């Protein structure tokens, strides 16, 4: 009985707790004019910005060959908001693999790149880091979508 009461008392807390994740936006969302040439910006959600550790890798498929390039994230004027600049070339298909950790929680996102910026509708979010298979699948889907 006491266990049930204890569990029930935790329910509102669990429900109210936000899941650690990413939100994507166009550079204007950052309200920081300096990052207007970024390909996109993102922010951490469900986490105290100062507790979050984030990085990003650009994963590409260029002429059938897999490529990985580290992305240097630019901090914006707002804590927890970062800008991504393209470090990949115009050839091939590319996704940006966002990875984050915060107070023991992890978050991931795979963001496909199109000819005119990031493809918001095709971005995938995970309550953990994206696996290699999920990144490959996103690249394959991008490549197939382009060939259609």
């Amino acid at each position, binding site marked *: 009985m006491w266990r049930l009461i204890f569990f029930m008392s935790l329910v509102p807390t669990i429900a109210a707790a936000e899941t650690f994740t990413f939100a994507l936006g*166009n*550079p*204007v*969302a950052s309200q920081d*004019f300096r990052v207007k040439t970024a390909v996109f910006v993102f922010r951490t959600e469900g986490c105290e910005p100062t507790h979050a550790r984030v990085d990003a890798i650009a994963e590409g498929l260029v002429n059938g060959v897999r490529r990985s390039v580290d992305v240097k994230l630019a901090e914006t004027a707002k804590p927890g908001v970062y800008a991504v600049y393209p470090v990949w070339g115009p050839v091939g298909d590319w996704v940006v693999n966002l990875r984050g950790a915060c107070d023991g929680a992890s978050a991931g996102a795979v963001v496909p790149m199109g000819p005119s910026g990031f493809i918001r509708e095709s971005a995938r979010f995970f309550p953990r880091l994206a696996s290699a298979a999920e990144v490959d699948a996103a690249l394959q889907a991008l490549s197939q979508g382009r060939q259609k």
Partner: protein
Amino acid sequence: MKTLFSRHVSSKLLPLIDGELSPREAQQVQAHLTTCTRCRVDYEKVRSAIAALDELQTAHAPDSIWAAIEAAHTPQTAPASVGSFRWAYGFAAAVAVILVAAVVWHFAGRTDARWEVRRIEGSPAIAARHIGDVASARAGEWIETDSASRAAVQVGNIGSVELSPNTRLRIVTARADEHRLALARGEIRASISAPPRLFFVDTPAGTAIDLGCEYVLNSDEEGNGLLRVTRGWVAFEWKGIESLVPAGASCPMRSRSVPGIPYFDDASDRLKQALADFLSGNVKGNPLDVVLSESRTRDTLTLWHLLSRVDPGGRERVYDRMAALAGVPAGVSREAVLRLDTETLARWREELAWKW
């Protein structure tokens, strides 16, 4: 051997302007000025400074100052008048400071900076004179392209503006703290890299205010036209009413009227048409209904601007549609939105921008 007048004549410029040189000296200085660019520039500076001083209006001191000064010069001045003397001294010092500030302000406000104008195609003109490949223009001068010419203006050190054919553009202010152009007609493509609100373009329909951006702006002579933003943000303002236009969106400009409502370029044609009908007062076909039903999540850009342009009944419908499309963040209440609370609207816009 170097003669006196083969050297620079800066020290003779003020006496020359004041007519204090002998006729022979004056003739020699003037001869030097015809060959020496540096001294000619100095001459113009001195002349401008004197002209600026001449423009300062005479301010009459209050009568009390004379009493204070007389009291100060009277040996048997009572101790009580020391305060008056101090006050007069202070007043005189303040007047001096104001005069100096006025001169500094006047010169800081002068728009002597020249911006480079580069010919891209055809034969653009500055102040009705056709230019070669490169020329410069300063505040007050018009830059014009005909149907076969294009030009690019270097805007101080913050960016550039390209003029399409048939464009007439004037440099209004060329200062480090304000770069302002006036587009009388035609089309410009601006690419600016500077903190917000340093670059402005006036049109007959209002002012485009750079918030860190790249954009294309076209206008006819009446002020009807379109602002299309490709990077960053632009605010378009008319009589205190502002439209905020982010990258990927456009905003119609209308002569002698409130700024249009921005929409994303990839919005449906039905939404764009309904928006135009709504703004022109054409209620046939219930344009607000169409705008609401055609809106996607990112079209909350358009709906956010509509909030303050519709009647209270319409505002409730717009709010409900926005809430359904994008949700309502913490700190934003229906009641505050419906009474158009400025901070609440700004808070919501900031959050909505993540979906734009």
